């Protein structure tokens, strides 16, 4: 556990908390981007360079931009009159706290069985590419199909409908 890990963890958790708690939707989107960036750097800290850069490309490059577009298209930058939190916010908070308590308890109780420092895995992007078109080629094809279907589906769902007589 070094200083860099604590800094990145604080950045990620702070970004996540701000994304959930802030009032303005645009601020929430920016805080989400900060959390995504912190996670990407945590991936780099874990020697997973490919996943880290994929995280930056996909989440900061695509998902964050999509969220900003959705906020603009739904006029979400205006503050709602009756508060930003749901009527049943307390129940949700209790459920989330309970989930964190169970997960944290499980991690702390199993701490002694967890592995200590291990050697840095010698995995290059070349190995990942070979594995993607070798052992994992069928999931790769299915993901390609899924992404195509999702793109077409998102366009169809969000497309302007023809005016119907009411």
């Amino acid at each position: 556990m070094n200083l860099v890990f604590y800094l990145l963890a604080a950045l990620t958790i702070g970004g996540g908390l701000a994304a959930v708690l802030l009032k303005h939707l645009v601020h929430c989107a920016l805080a989400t981007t900060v959390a995504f960036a912190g996670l990407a750097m945590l991936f780099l800290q874990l020697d997973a360079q490919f996943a880290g850069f994929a995280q930056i490309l996909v989440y900061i490059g695509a998902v964050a931009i999509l969220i900003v577009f959705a906020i603009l298209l739904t006029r979400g930058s205006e503050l709602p009159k009756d508060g930003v939190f749901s009527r049943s916010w307390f129940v949700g908070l209790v459920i989330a706290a309970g989930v964190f308590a169970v997960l944290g308890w499980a991690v702390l109780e199993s701490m002694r069985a967890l592995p200590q420092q291990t050697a840095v895995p010698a995995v290059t992007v070349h190995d990942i590419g070979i594995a993607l078109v070798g052992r994992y080629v069928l999931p790769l094809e299915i993901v390609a199909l899924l992404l195509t279907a999702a793109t077409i589906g998102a366009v169809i769902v969000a497309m302007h409908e023809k005016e119907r007589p009411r």
Partner: protein
Amino acid sequence: MTGVTMGINSPLAGYLLVAALLFAIGLAGALVRRNAILVLIGIELMLNAANLNLIAFWRYGPHPEALTGMMFAIFSIAVAAAEAAVGLGLVIAIHRHTDTTDLDKMNRMKG
């Protein structure tokens, strides 16, 4: 509670705790907020926490050269991108229909 007195000495445990906290924050966001876009942001945070777990277990697992955790995380990122595109498209479509993104007001299934 021996873990607390020893302090967090296993690096994997630190990453797992960060992922658990991020998952709880995302869950709270999905359950507590009114706006549908914020609920989607919460779901994205939960997916990211799961990815962090996958990568951490890959890094500190016994066979990192098998690349299983890494591949799982990469495919999970791709599926999450598809989910975000369809989810935000749905939010925009519902906003066009009912002129609201408030989930408390979306209480009918008739168009």
